């Protein structure tokens, strides 16, 4: 039986997922085809609407999956999957919640199976540069700001921030805002924000955005000045760390970013990361922001269910763990399988988290989370007033309600 899988992974990630799928193909005897696309989100909508969807789709955003489920394009996962996730995933219930959407009939069901997690609360830096300048890795948000000020004082630029991403320009800013949200507000507020129980214009949200603005809008703090933030491609942005002399000393980005580092740079040696520190005050603990891809069945077939079942095996996780850039909440995997010591360090951050929250923009409706929130952040960085920006975002949210 042929089973088709569509996902957003291309390039190196595509090879990794192919490796996983080929094992499944071998075990099950199915002919498994994976196609990755940069414009996966648009492609899957078109295909689903037209009725030519693949069997399984890998959604980078729960928000889109929710919409698809509501329109009836997704098939609920087999009974028992929910229990399995609860049992075998760390913080199982939260993963179940993230994968549960209202179907066309309004009844919620588990549609998405999470596999592969990204860690977002990371700051990348070059240890030797820190060494040269005598800087220490900061432990609190306050330290981080002090360090930034110190760097400026030394006549250098602390941060490289780039929001450019073609059609998705602006999304890196949302990660910043979300991390700031977790560092300035209680997790519950975060959840209210995600569900729009508090509007975007709420002072809490505004505060988080402004906290991001403290970094991004500060000409002295970002390489190229605030004007460069929005135009710099997020893939190009970290290169400032590596130039000689360095254009910046720190870069906040998720766990996947090493793919875009200059060729030959070794994480852990040439470049390293630290946890984007939480505020030392306020007792918000050690919040961690993450994201993950969820697999859903877009075209029902027994083989598709088989694939989901396969993903529940530790093996399916270990194959990718042995490669690169893969984190998992699966409790049953052999952690020795990590091919890369830095991944372990990330897992530690994940495990030491007092709060884990899923990327908010990915949970918001597409029009907001992959639309007005992005563009709003670009506008904000471009100099628009925060009130106007949040007002516009809220308005777009109201429109899709």
């Amino acid at each position, binding site marked *: 039986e042929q089973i088709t899988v569509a996902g957003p992974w291309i390039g190196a990630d595509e090879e990794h997922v192919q490796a996983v799928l080929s094992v499944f193909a071998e075990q099950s005897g199915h002919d498994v085809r994976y196609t990755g696309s940069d414009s996966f989100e648009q492609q899957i909508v078109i295909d689903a609407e037209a009725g030519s969807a693949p069997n399984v789709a890998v959604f980078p955003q729960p928000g889109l999956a929710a919409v698809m489920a509501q329109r009836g394009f997704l098939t609920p996962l087999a009974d028992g999957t929910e229990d399995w996730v609860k049992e075998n995933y760390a913080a199982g219930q939260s993963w179940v919640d993230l994968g549960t959407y209202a179907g066309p009939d309004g009844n919620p069901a588990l549609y998405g199976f999470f596999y592969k997690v990204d860690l977002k609360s990371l700051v990348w830096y070059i240890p030797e540069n820190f060494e040269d300048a005598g800087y220490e890795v900061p432990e609190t948000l306050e330290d981080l700001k002090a360090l930034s000020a110190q760097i400026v004082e030394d006549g250098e630029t602390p941060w490289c921030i780039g929001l450019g991403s073609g059609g998705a320009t602006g999304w890196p800013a949302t990660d910043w805002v979300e991390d700031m949200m977790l560092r300035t507000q209680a997790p519950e507020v975060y959840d209210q924000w995600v569900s729009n129980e508090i509007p975007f214009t709420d002072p809490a949200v505004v505060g988080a955005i402004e906290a991001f603005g403290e970094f991004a809008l500060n000409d002295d703090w970002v390489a190229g000045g605030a004007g460069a933030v929005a135009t710099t491609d997020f893939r190009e942005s970290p290169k400032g760390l590596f130039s000689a002399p360095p254009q910046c000393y720190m870069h906040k980005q998720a766990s996947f970013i090493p793919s875009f580092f200059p060729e030959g740079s070794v994480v852990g040696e040439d470049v390293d990361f630290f946890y984007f520190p939480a505020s030392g005050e306020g007792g918000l603990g050690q919040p961690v922001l993450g994201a993950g891809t969820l697999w859903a069945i877009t075209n029902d077939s027994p083989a598709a269910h088989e694939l989901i079942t396969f993903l529940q095996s530790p093996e399916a996780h270990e194959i990718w763990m042995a490669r690169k850039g893969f984190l998992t909440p699966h409790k049953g995997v052999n952690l020795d399988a990590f091919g890369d010591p830095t991944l372990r360090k990330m897992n530690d951050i994940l495990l030491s988290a007092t709060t884990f929250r899923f990327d908010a923009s990915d949970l918001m409706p597409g029009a907001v989370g*992959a639309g007005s929130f992005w563009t709003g952040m670009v506008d904000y960085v471009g100099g628009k007033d925060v009130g106007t920006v949040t007002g516009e975002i809220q308005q777009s949210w109201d429109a899709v309600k």
Partner: protein
Amino acid sequence: MHPALQGLLTIVIGVGGCVGYFYFSNIFLDKVLYPARGPNAGRNINRANLIRPWLFLAPAVLALGLYLAYPVVETLRLSLTNRVPGGGYEWAGAENYVQMWNDPKFMEALLNNMLWLFVVPALSTAFGLLAAQLTDRIKWGALAKSIIFMPMAISFVGAAVIWKLVYDYRAEGQEQIGVLNAIVVSLGGEPTAWLTVPFWNNFFLMAVLIWIQTGFAMVILSAALRGIPEETVEAAIVDGANPFQIFFKIKVPQIMGTIVVVWTTITIVVLKIFDIVFAMTNGQWETQVLANYMYDKLFRANDWGVGSASAMVIMLLVTPILVWNVYNARKEMR
């Protein structure tokens, strides 16, 4: 099978099917249905000739109806409905339009589109006219024309990459790799992230389309200029006109008709413009245009109602040109 072989086979089947249709349907008409033989030969030929136009037209009419007319109707319908969760549609009246109208991004797109509509056709035509006039007068004009015409062959996405390189921005003090900033810096100015400067960035995007369309305008206008009777120009020379007077008072008025045609053709392109904005700014920094807004709504926000409504706005904006085109086509048939 080797992909080349497979491709070849597919091509043969596709093209062959098409050729076959025309060939055999005509054979059928002439040989079987109304054979041009026997006592009724004359009448049969006449009858066959009544049917034949439709035989020739059938595939085209079918394709046009299905691939262009039907989607327009479908879009109109979508713009007046809302999806209900779980599939199906409900009548929404003007709701989508109202919602769109209240969206500041829409207004921005509409205003920007207006700006595009004024600037791009005007400048493309003006540059094209200038290029046509100048290149017609020099020995290596054909070469110059080829070069100016070349961007026509480049896809919008390719053009976007090319121009991104031109507009590239590096922080002050760094070596600029974008030509524009390099020039600005060498003249003592400050580098600018051109694409993020609201309002003016529209013009930097338009430059790309102008760059592409000028060649088109030039070719057409150059032919028109060459179509001007040489004698009228000579008469003007004898009358004492200088080259500028000849150009503006004699030549340009005579090719006004062609200028209008070129202008409207480019206007249509402008209304459909999508790729350049999509690839260069994706509508950010206040560069949104309607086609990109529509794409955004359709495929990113999944809001088909508003997406279709904005598509209808594009259609609406095209309508005057459409009417004018149809009017001209009909006049020409007389």
